[in-house]
């Protein structure tokens, strides 16, 4: 249920000449997580309800992220609503991932562009997570010059 709480995101909005940041919300859904370090009593495969220990001690997410740009895109022509799907690996840095962990991954975002007529773009993404995975930051580099960067908070409560 906690996955329905969205995380705030900042999107770059550009038409090549002008650029602005726009505020949006992102829902962090994880249909599948495969843990690399589940113990002998627990399963490595988790669906939607993701145990933070198994996730942040080393795992792979298959994620889906609906996004809603609250302030809209002024320059780029991108639609307010987009949905991303992708995969990332998460590895621990400190405290076996409870104090700090990071992620690297890629995703495809479906989002209509009224100006170019395109309907999506690919992205590389990375993240850093703190405090048992309650909070984090995710950065996306999008292969679309009209919204090159996203920076999003990652907020979860278990």
């Amino acid at each position, binding site marked *: 249920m906690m996955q329905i709480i969205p995380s705030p995101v900042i999107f770059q909005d550009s038409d090549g000449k002008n650029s602005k940041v726009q505020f949006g919300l992102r829902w962090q859904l994880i249909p599948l997580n495969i*843990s690399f*370090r*589940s*113990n*002998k*009593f*627990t399963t490595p495969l988790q669906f939607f309800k993701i*145990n*933070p*220990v*198994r996730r942040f*001690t*080393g795992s792979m997410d298959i994620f889906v992220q609906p996004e809603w740009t609250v302030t809209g895109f002024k320059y780029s022509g991108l639609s307010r609503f987009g949905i991303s799907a992708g995969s990332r690996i998460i590895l621990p840095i*400190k*405290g*076996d*991932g*409870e*104090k700090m962990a990071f992620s690297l991954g890629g995703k495809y975002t479906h989002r209509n562009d009224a100006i170019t007529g395109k309907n999506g773009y690919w992205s590389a993404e990375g993240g850093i997570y*703190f*405090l*048992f995975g*309650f909070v984090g930051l995710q950065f996306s580099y999008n292969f679309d010059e009209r919204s090159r960067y996203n920076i999003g908070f990652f907020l979860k*409560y*278990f």
Partner: protein
Amino acid sequence: MKRQLAVILITILTVTINGCWPVRVGMKSIGESIFGEPEKVKNKIKDPIKENVRLSALWVGHSTVLLQIEDKVILVDPVFEDVISGVVLRKVEAGLDMKNIPKLDIVAVSHAHMDHMSLGSLKDLDERFPKAKLVIPFGSEEYLPSYDMDMIRLKTANSKELGYIGESREIDGLKITAVFAQHQGGRYGMDSYTWKVPGCTGYIIEYKGITVFYAGDTTYDEFAYKYLGTQYKIDLALIPVGPCRDCETDGSYYHVASLGALKVFDELKADYMIPVHYGALEYFADPNIPVYVLKDLAERYGSSSATGLAISKPYSEGLKILNEGEQYIFQYK
């Protein structure tokens, strides 16, 4: 107009945030955990495991205790970090350096709360002692990754119906049994209720005629400890004190304060008690208040039963209050 609204909003937010006690405490804790340092323990013991010892206990701090029973070394609820639960700086650092533990047979974790189970400490222990056994209560496996240490999961018996004594496992001649503790599983707060994962226990550890009881986190129970006292001849009881001032009457059903701890000790009929679960975290202005109260109670009620605390013997002799990093070697004839 927009600017005026923004100023008003920022003013309201600033006043609200500054006036909000949990926010202030939270921000103070985060600040301390990033920039602060715990009080140092002087003269830490470098050789905690000794020859010709029947029983010794070294209080590392909070609920972490290193036990030596003959040739076996047991560590209960290992938390060695300066920052507990991510944002809380401990008042006094861990009283033992992990590198000075020369061998380890068993790590016993009572439950998954952050002041009792640290994944960072467990990972360090796993790297140093991959052949040790990690004993946990049923349910706590949800909060642990895999280790080289062999994980042993015991079902406990946290009610009269279950008989107070749960599963046992014999490990190379040492017997460890999960026994009654009235507390909670969970780790993050709400998950105690939403995940409904069990997972808290006490332990009885028996080896070569020595019996040690570790209560974990628990409340006082008028039947459980009397029963355990009839089933085991306990040499040493490690019993928590606090964090509540009067856990027995203030509705804190998951902890035991000094008076309750003394009752547990009395009903177990144990020879010795070492209080734990104080000192590291700022539950009170002085985190050692629970042991001042404990000492006072033990002396005041020592050999009389005038004040509602039904006792069977003087406590003062059996009560061993240690400082962080202090080790007590029990003398046996």
